[in-house]
């Protein structure tokens, strides 16, 4: 398994290189640049600025310098928009915030979703099932950009229970609404996947054998049915983990959390090449890592899988 992990991480290097190269080229060919504005700068000024950031160099040279600084100095370059901050600062500031509410959203979506799904499958075709299914569909149908305003309306403006935005070092009243807004739709999907997976497992031959052995139903669910039920859920959780961890621009905007999502979209709009690239590489690296963890998790869920 260690050998497999190392092989996978080595294989990630060309993947990431390809990702960086593709993003690099795509950003450059997109119209406009970081210093384009409605009132054009005098050509001499523009040339000076571009020379300062190395933008006057040929593209391969820019790419090479960029890679060189990442690999040898772990430096993702200066921001083109914010004079006094570089990309490392921006990520260091925004990522912990996204990580906090993202991770909590992931936990909430998984625990509530799996519980709902299992309850629905065990009580198939009863009111519990119907309730869980309706709740799941409703949750799935509500994207976070709808959930956000509704939550603020109800809990901040009408009831006055929770602060309408801000981060405040991640104090819990500030976390509740971002987490709910971000997790509901994933929770709905997880509940649905868990339910159908559990129903299939409960119909399988080995569950029939377990029943014929006369062991208590609760034990059948926990010992025999749970692991295979979660197998398809795990493959869905991998991408979900990356999505929620890297933050959501809507959550950042509605709740002014200051997470990385807002910085990411902002950098794309303002052609802040280095921020955009830096965050892309971060997301890419995270995806590779989470995919590896997901694959290793399979082996725990299914002993037939060996690496």
């Amino acid at each position: 398994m260690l050998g497999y992990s190392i092989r996978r991480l080595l294989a990630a290097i060309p993947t990431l290189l390809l990702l960086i190269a593709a993003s690099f080229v795509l950003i450059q060919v997109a119209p406009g640049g970081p210093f384009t504005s409605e009132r054009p700068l005098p050509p001499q000024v523009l040339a000076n600025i571009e020379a300062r950031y190395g933008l006057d160099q040929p593209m391969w040279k820019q790419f090479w310098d960029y890679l060189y600084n990442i690999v040898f100095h772990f430096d993702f370059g200066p921001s083109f928009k914010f004079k006094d901050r570089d990309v490392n600062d921006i990520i260091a500031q925004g990522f912990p915030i996204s990580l906090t509410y993202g991770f909590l959203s992931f936990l909430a979506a998984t625990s509530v979703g799996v519980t709902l799904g299992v309850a629905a499958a065990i009580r198939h075709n009863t009111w519990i099932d119907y309730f869980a299914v309706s709740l799941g569909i409703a949750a799935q149908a509500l994207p976070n950009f709808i959930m956000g305003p509704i939550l603020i309306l109800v809990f901040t403006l009408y009831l006055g229970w929770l602060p309408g935005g801000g981060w405040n070092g991640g104090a819990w009243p500030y976390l509740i609404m971002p987490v709910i807004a971000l997790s509901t739709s994933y929770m709905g999907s997880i509940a649905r996947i868990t339910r159908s997976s559990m129903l299939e497992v409960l119909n399988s031959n080995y569950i029939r054998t377990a029943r014929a052995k006369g062991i208590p139903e609760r034990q059948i669910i926990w010992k025999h049915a749970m692991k295979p039920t979660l197998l398809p859920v795990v493959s869905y959780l991998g991408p979900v983990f990356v999505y929620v961890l890297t933050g959501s621009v809507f959550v950042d905007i509605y709740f002014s959390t200051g997470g990385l999502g807002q910085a990411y979209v902002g950098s794309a709009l303002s052609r802040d090449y280095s921020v955009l690239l830096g965050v892309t590489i971060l997301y890419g690296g995270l995806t590779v890592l989470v995919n590896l963890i997901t694959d290793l998790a399979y082996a725990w869920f299914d002993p037939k899988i060996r690496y």
Partner: protein
Amino acid sequence: MALFSVRDLNVSFTTQDGMIDAVKGVSFDIEAGDCLGIVGESGSGKSQTFMAAMGLMPKNGLATGSVQLMGREMLNVSIPELNSLRGRDISMIFQDPLTALTPHLKIVNQMEEVLRSHQGLSGRDAEKVALGWLDKVQIPEAKRRLDQYPHELSGGMRQRVMIAMAMLCNPKVLIADEPTTALDVTVQAEILDLMVGLQKEEGTAIALITHDMGVVARMCRDVHVMRHGEFVESGSVDEIFSAPKKDYTKSLLTAMPRLDSDDAPHAVAADAETLLSVDDVMVHFPIKQDRGLFSGTVLLKAVNGVSFDLRAGETLGVVGESGCGKSTLARAVLQLIPPTAGAVTWLGQDLVGLTSHALKSRRKDLQIVFQDPLASLDPRMTISASIAEPLRTFRPELTLAERKIEVAEMMERVGLDARMVNRYPHELSGGQNQRVGIARAMINRPKLVICDEAVSALDVSIQAQILRLLKGLQYDFGMAMIFISHDLSVVRAVSNRIMVLYLGRVVEMADRDVLYDEPRHPYTRSLISAVPIPDPHLERTRQRLRIPGELPSPLDPKAALRFIPSRLTSDLAYQPSLKEVSSGHFVEEHDPLETLLDRPA
């Protein structure tokens, strides 16, 4: 009072098409230490009878009547009450031991939970009992098995684990639902022997649910023949087999091909030309194996040097146990899998290495019928479209009307009702779908048809019809056939010549009668002696030939030398050669039978 008694049991299911009665008022008793057979074809309700008794029905099932074990009612009682009986006083084993064992739990955990629930044993004590039972069911290296997962065991070992698990609490009754259907003949014979032993030593009563009259003849004292949810005929095996009263019982008995019957296939004309000649064909697959940082591959020699000729109108039977390479051989002959080495000469021309375009024109004469008829037909095409497809490919000059006539004629020939033209595969039965598969293969009058386990998934009566159909078509069209099956009785019923495969190599090849009357190779002899014959008198007196040890893994380098252990010490790469012992009778080199039997497993 009987140990296990069923009275007026009815089982019905609520479905979208209304109520379906699966079991209609069945009553029977099982006495202590008895073995009762319940025989029937698929859909007869034989399994549902016991599923209802064990509380294992799907949720849309409804059972009425009474099922009593030692005077205690089992039917429709609460789950906790039922759980105090099932697994302890009555237990059950199932058909497919791979899917019937929980894949992610070690054997020891699956056994321990039974002991904990029923006897309060856990940890070391439970492990000791579990190990004791694994030993009793004769699993090799029992201690190691405890910590293994089901997929790490062979099919036969899995069924032994199932039996050991069912026997943990010394139940009074063991229900065996098609316990050997998914297993190879030699493994089947050993599992049946094991069950007989348990019945004698532990006094366990056995209810044996099966479709196989041969198994009943070997195992049971009394038998109920079931059809459409009712008992058609009941009595002792001797009465049922020697003097069946009902037509259905008679048809079941005659439908089954027997090793001792005298139905000969059509003889091959003496001057028939050689169509196909297969010379030293090999198919090797690289199998990935993890070795540290870099993964390596080992070669799985699925087919390892097979040669034979086939003449027009001849049927060559290919038998062997699972994993012996018989299906791979079929695919290699048809170039569906490119052979690693060797030549496949068809009408004087080597097929190996031909371009796909050149091959396509020859496929008109080279056809195959697969095992699972439903899975091998396109679910989105009507059956007439499936049958017509080869016509469109190979005879594009036909008009729509001509094609329709051809399809209609073919459908009639294979016994499909003309009204079915627009049906889809899922609307037909297994037997009807297999007729579609045969019609599709035969519509261009091919010169060679390979039947790859073509009747294995079918009920015996349907199987008999399909075999008759194939023989009839062969007589009419004069094509050559390669008939692949794990079932020696079926192969015997259709083949002129038979080839026995063992781990990718031919161990014996001879004319049908020679092979069955004077088998030479120990493997052939053990295979033949393992086949149950539907005749209780014969079965009781027959001596089985048991070769110690299980079918080894084909990746094991020693596997190929299983029948010539004298070479094991000197030269692992030794390839036993095929010798012609009499005209047309080839036997692979092997050690004398006595030495093989004396070897420890």
